[in-house]
């Protein structure tokens, strides 16, 4: 009895200690601290951790190369990352804490549009800039905020390059099904995609919204099978897309072409699906190519290699976008010559540089313009298929029936 009570107490103490471990990186008092609240636990931890790793890697690398030159001084960067447990309300409170209590100088963002929509209001209210690489929904940028900047491409154009590529396939798909989850990002993607499909003259035979975290796609797949679209475009989350592909296989549904907003660039997604990931199209705003030069990492390819060495997994565009956010601050601080948040904000608005992630220049609403490269999983590897200049590699099209693989 007594030992059991002791065990109970021990469990609760563990829980309390764990709750207290919110501070993941607690850097010493350096002159320029970047603060972020990121999903390190909870349902979004899978992608959230890419942001922590990307931020940390970039900060370390910039410090190693001498830090940031502000005025006549070389200052080191510091990073403070809090775990918001995939809870948007907690994330908002943490940003308030970062700004008002911890007095961080500048803010980095969280993953996911829903979170960024909520947390960017803190940045705007306290007039501290937030450069974020995790939210792409148009809703983040259409509120006239001055302190929010984003390094992901515009959500409504996620499928733009994919639809371009589809038109050039032989035979080109003529009918399309559009499925999307009911969160801010995916609703923005669907809205934009509908317009793009209309412009391209493709017929939408099924246009359906589903609940975020849905795990059963059998009914939707039955409807897809009966409406027989040539192509299926899905805007959702990795777990849903995993389920969708597995259930498509088990219900023997093979369109000519299917493409997904997320998943395909992520190593653990491809690992989970194994050979079933083949033929899936996706898109990425970033590929680790040696031609993308970078002031701190050499180039994107060298960055990717160093990243794998340090973290044990391949970086995708989330991690690269996170690195771009930190680099943007380094450049803006140097241009501003001060850490005053309002002056840094103006310097960010005028940034114009090339890094490992691509060309960083924010438009009037604070978003960058980056082309999406169409990618496809071929024999377990991600191949770049279609970019701004047309086809890069040969697509495997149409998709081979499941029974013939």
């Amino acid at each position, binding site marked *: 009895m007594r030992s059991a009570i002791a065990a109970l107490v021990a469990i609760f103490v563990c*829980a309390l200690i764990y709750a207290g471990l919110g501070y993941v990186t607690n850097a010493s008092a350096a002159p320029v601290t970047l603060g972020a609240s990121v999903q390190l636990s909870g349902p979004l931890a899978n992608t959230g951790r890419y942001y922590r790793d990307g931020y940390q890697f970039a900060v370390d690398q910039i410090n190693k190369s001498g830090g940031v030159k502000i005025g006549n001084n070389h200052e080191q960067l510091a990073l403070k990352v809090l775990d918001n447990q995939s809870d948007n309300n907690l994330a908002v409170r943490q940003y308030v804490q970062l700004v008002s209590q911890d007095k961080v100088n500048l803010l980095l963002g969280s993953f996911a549009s829903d979170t960024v929509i909520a947390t960017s209001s803190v940045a705007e209210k306290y007039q501290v800039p937030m450069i974020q690489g995790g939210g792409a929904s148009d809703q983040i940028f259409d509120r006239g905020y001055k302190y929010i900047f984003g390094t992901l491409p515009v959500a409504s154009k996620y499928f733009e390059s994919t639809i371009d590529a589809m038109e050039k396939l032989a035979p080109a798909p003529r009918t399309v099904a559009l499925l999307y989850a009911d969160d801010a990002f995916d609703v923005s993607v669907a809205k934009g995609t509908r317009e793009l499909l209309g412009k391209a003259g493709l017929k939408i035979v099924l246009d359906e919204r589903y609940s975020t975290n849905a795990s059963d796609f059998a*009914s939707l797949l039955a409807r897809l099978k009966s409406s027989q679209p040539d192509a299926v475009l899905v805007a959702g989350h990795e777990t849903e897309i995993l389920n969708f592909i597995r259930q498509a296989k088990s219900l023997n549904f093979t369109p000519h072409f299917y493409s997904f907003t997320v998943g395909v660039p992520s190593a653990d997604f491809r690992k989970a699906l194994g050979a079933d990931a083949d033929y899936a199209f996706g898109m990425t705003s970033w590929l680790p190519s040696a031609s993308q030069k970078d002031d701190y990492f050499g180039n994107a390819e060298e960055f990717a290699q160093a990243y794998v060495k340090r973290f044990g997994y391949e970086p995708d565009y989330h991690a690269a976008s996170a690195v771009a956010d930190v680099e943007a601050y380094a450049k803006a601080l140097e241009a501003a010559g001060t850490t005053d948040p309002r002056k840094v904000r103006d310097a960010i608005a005028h940034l114009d540089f090339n890094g490992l992630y691509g060309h960083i220049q924010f438009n009037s609403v604070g978003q960058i313009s980056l082309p999406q490269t169409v990618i496809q999983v071929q024999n377990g590897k991600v191949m770049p298929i279609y970019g701004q200049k047309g086809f890069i590699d040969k697509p495997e099209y149409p998709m081979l029936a499941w029974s013939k693989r």
Partner: protein
Amino acid sequence: MSLLWQVLLNGVLLGGLYALMALGLALVWGVLNIVNLAHGAFIMLGAYVCYYAFTGLSIDPFAALPLAMLVLFAFGYLLQRYLLNLVIRAPMFNTLLITFGIDVILTYLAQIAFSADFRTINPSYAGDNFALWGATVPLVRLLAFAIALALTLAMWLFLSRTRLGRAIRATAQNLIAARLYGVEPRNTYALTFGLGAALAGVAGGLYGVVSQVNPYIGTSLTAKSFAIAVIGGLDSPLGVIVGGLFLGIVESLTSLYLGPTYADVASFGILVLVLIVRPTGILGRTA
């Protein structure tokens, strides 16, 4: 027409898996009066047991189900014997809080131990299927359905025919009388909770084969299991299977006719309706 047939079939197969998920929760709830909020986390652990047995030891996921049952049984038994038995006589709110705490702890320990990576249990036959009167039947879902039915039936026989099963029911009905007849409640409670956890373990293994596994799948599975247990009633495992099938079919039809975003509205709407109209569940005895 063939669309409706396919969707109905999907609903029935989905319902079988649902029923298996809820079976352990309903058993523990009915006998111990504990609404185990960590039930979904047990399912998650069962899925990881099968995942590691499959990827690490190359044990077929279906052959690994008994292993998942065993591991989860031991875990559940110990948890009840040395932790939950301490508060079993306390108001229900206490056990709710404790199982909620266990859920949080298990989820976070799972993230530390297994990482937040998404995993699937993906044997070569995971996507196999066959045609039946114009509909496609996924093999693995059919197997999961058969296992769910078999376990429900076994559970029902166990509770109604064996001495131990009767002891479990007797403890639930009248503790004092049961003790007078020589039933040792601490052990009986622990066995019951262990059984509930073992059923969650099997459900987890099957869930990993048809869906995907990560440390956070638990919460929504607990909610679903809870709804099924209420809809089916807590008196008998047969009620749970009815509740599971009912929910599976309703969700599939809602998804077909109203749209997939309404599936959850339908299932929890029915939960509310059942609570108003027939609080003891569809098959439950009226009080």
